[in-house]
């Protein structure tokens, strides 16, 4: 491709920006996990939790800026139209994941939610599996751009994670409503659980989207 490299300079820039975007999302997810660790340790919101919530927001906001940069570059004559459309739609879907993480932290922070300790173990597992799915999705995006053979394995793993999270989500809600907590608190915590379960739903949606993009490219 040497002599034609001038034609694909923008493509290379997009590739680099997408990887930077994924790194930023990874950072948002790391902060999300740390915020929950702090919360579980202290059993309530704290300054450290607020700081990590702000860090999560910052990383999410940075990834939005990078996405905008990618969009601008795409419309400046880079890639074929189908690729442009697919990548833009994919980034939009991926963006929902850190948004979801941010929303969960804001829910806890703004509503000053007190999560009952008997839910901690299941919640920790839910977060662990959800973030594992996020990692797998990033792997899928990389596979789409590097080696598509790896996609199938990752898709199966993400799908399995979603099923596991659905089970945990149902278990958490059952345990919550079996408890003696105040009904208002139950409703608030239920909303939080549903929002947490939404992370794997979104990763699964992105995973399916990636598969469709890959299949579309077969003649």
């Amino acid at each position: 491709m040497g002599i034609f490299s001038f034609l694909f300079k923008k493509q290379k820039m997009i590739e680099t920006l997408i990887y930077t975007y994924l790194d930023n999302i990874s950072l948002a997810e790391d902060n999300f996990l740390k915020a929950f660790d702090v919360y579980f340790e202290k059993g309530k919101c704290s300054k450290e939790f607020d700081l990590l919530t702000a860090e999560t927001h910052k990383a999410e906001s940075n990834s939005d800026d990078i996405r905008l940069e990618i969009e601008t570059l795409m419309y400046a004559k880079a890639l074929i139209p189908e690729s442009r459309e697919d990548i833009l739609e994919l980034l939009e879907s991926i963006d929902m994941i850190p948004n979801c993480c941010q929303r969960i932290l804001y829910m806890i922070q703004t509503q000053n939610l007190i999560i009952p300790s008997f839910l901690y173990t299941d919640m920790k597992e839910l977060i662990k599996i959800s973030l594992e799915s996020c990692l797998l999705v990033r792997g899928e995006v990389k596979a789409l751009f590097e080696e598509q053979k790896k996609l199938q394995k990752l898709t199966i793993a993400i799908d399995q994670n979603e099923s596991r999270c659905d089970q945990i989500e149902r278990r958490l809600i059952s345990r919550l409503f079996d408890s003696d907590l105040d009904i208002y608190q139950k409703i608030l915590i239920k909303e939080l659980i549903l929002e947490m379960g939404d992370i794997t739903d979104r990763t699964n949606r992105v995973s399916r989207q990636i598969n469709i993009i890959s299949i579309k490219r077969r003649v």
Partner: protein
Amino acid sequence: MHYLLSGIFLGWSLGANDAANLFGSAVTSKMLKFRTAAILGAIFVLLGAIWQGQAGIETIKGLTLLNLKLATISSIAAALAVTVMTFCRLPISTSQAVVGAIVGIGLIKGQLYLGGLGKVVVCWFGTPIGGLLVSVTLYRVLGVIYNRLGLNLFQGDIFLRLGLIISGCYCAYALGANNVANVTAVFVGAGLLSILAASIIGGLSIGLGIITYSKGVMETVGSRLVKLDAFSALVVVLSGAITVHFFTIVGVPVSASQAVIGAVLGVGIVKSISTIRRQTLGAIAIGWFMTPIVAAFFSLILYFIFQT
């Protein structure tokens, strides 16, 4: 030399109209800047005209004996036919217009070589059919190769973009080699130009049309082609080029647009989708049938005007 102006005008309008077949999809989808596409197109048209334009020139000049005045009349008649058909929004073939105009003059003079004409008409039928057959074959063969390569998204993108640019250049080369005869062959028959000079002047006038006036047509036609996916667009452009190049070797000027339309239909057959509306097909059929008749009619009128 002013006699040549009608030919140059014809070449210019041919370049302006046919450039869309070469780089329409690449430019409309912003894969390639118009300026780059136009320059590439003009260069390869000129190369094709100089390198392989002779066979078509021999065929066209062999259809009838024309003096300089008659050559000019036929050239103006063809240009008028192209203009009128374009005005009526009917798809035109410059090759058909040129041959129709020559046939009109040949009929009056009673100097028509039917053997050569038969070959030309057979090739007219063969152009869309050839485009269709090549695209069906190419889609399947290239499809298997493309799938086996197992390219990732970016590699696939590079493959298709490069493919569209290279096949666009090849199509420009085939267009120059095939259609230069439409522009200047009559002047070779009339003894005004040598074959090499005719190739250079013809190639330059087509190239000029591409550079100066093809942007609008490219965007209109290209936006229709770009509705196909990039792989199909690549197959269409490449099939059009192969078909036109084949008829260049046979030595008959044909329509690049008709080859491309055949190729689009071929892709539709492979994918079991409707790529061209019935209404458009009807217009193409009318254009295909009417262009030589209209050109012959104009050459008759012009002949009588100049005689009186």
